[in-house]
């Protein structure tokens, strides 16, 4: 049994689904996980997460910070945010991205703010990437 549990603080996305394959944007880069993977725990960066279930259902989502734990019986993914392409609006994202990039370039930010803006930019870029992939 190789199961997927995937949740964000606001909603449970999937639980106890038989997993065929999952790709996560891990700390070290894209990580593809198949059943039988060695036990691993890693943090996730902002990026695109893809999974395919045994039932044939597959999904890709843009996530921001999260972590992923792989054990013998399945994969647990917790992400701060997770959105599908259909819920996104490219115009809104681009505007937010621009605002944040401007802040980075023009304002003098302290460490905390800088980190926050970087984090935000990372999330927005992941969302843009997701949309770009969709139109191909």
């Amino acid at each position: 049994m190789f199961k997927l549990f995937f949740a964000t603080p606001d909603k449970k996305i999937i639980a106890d689904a038989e997993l065929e394959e999952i790709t996560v944007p891990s700390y070290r880069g894209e990580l593809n996980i198949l059943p039988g993977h060695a036990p691993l725990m890693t943090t996730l960066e902002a990026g695109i997460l893809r999974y395919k279930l045994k039932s044939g259902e597959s999904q890709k989502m843009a996530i921001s910070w999260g972590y992923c734990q792989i054990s013998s019986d399945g994969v647990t993914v917790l992400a701060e945010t997770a959105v599908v392409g259909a819920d996104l609006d490219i115009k809104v994202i681009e505007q937010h991205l621009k605002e944040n990039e401007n802040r980075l370039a023009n304002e003098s930010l302290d460490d905390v703010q800088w980190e926050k803006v970087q984090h935000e930019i990372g999330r927005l870029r992941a969302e843009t990437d997701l949309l770009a992939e969709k139109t191909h």
Partner: protein
Amino acid sequence: MASLKDIRVRIESTKNTQQITKAMKLVSAAKLRKAQNQIVNMRLYAHSLLKVIANITLTERVNHPLIVPKPETKKVLLLVLSSDRGLCGGFNAQINKFTDNYVKTNQGKYETMDFFFIGRRALDFFAKRKFNVIGSMLKLDKDVSYALASGVAEKAMHLYLDGQYDEIRLIYNEFKSAISQSVVCETLLPVDLEKQTLIATEAHSPGFAQDMIFEPSPEKIIDQLLVKHFSVQIYRCMAESVAAEHGARMTAMENASNNAKEVLSRLTLTYNKLRQEKITTELIEIVSGAEAL
């Protein structure tokens, strides 16, 4: 004695009030259901997060500043969670009373005790006191989101890590059921892992292998996880408080509707009696008039 017309007016206005309270009750019931769903979903997340933290701390030795208590507790930051709106029974009054008592009993113990208010009701109540308020957050009646909670969490955490405070506590209404809530005070920072670990190990995950690979190092992972854990804790308390608020409002409105019903039946009785009396008097007048002829 009130005239027939006066009573009629009162009946009408009571009916209107009853309609409003009934509607408010229904709205609260719907919102409560939503809030409860939110809590259930968030618990899943919070629980798996805690499980991982517990598992890492079991296998690795961790000395994180968010876990290790300060040698002395001198400076305390109190977060007080109330609602923005009234008409929810004792919800806010309980919070205010609890906070007031808490301050009175603990005043001498600490060097400083500062406040951060979430929700307008408590802020207004304590505005006249000489409390040191470092900040507040209002207008949360829309939706409590994780983003909102993590904003507060970040702020509080930086104050803690900078050494401004030795402990961060939170006073809020714990959601027990739709009709009962109780005020509790929780210490959020430093994270009390022993208690938390106990809770988590009850549901110990068998899949956690000893030869787990960590990327990056366990210290770095736990550092990030603890930060998230703190945000999730605040989010949980906020979600519980919102659910408790709707529960309290629902009960209060239910009671108000029942009271209105009672008042209505009393008023209707008086009205009918008066009307009957009036008819009787008129009849007697007519009969005695006819007899006189």
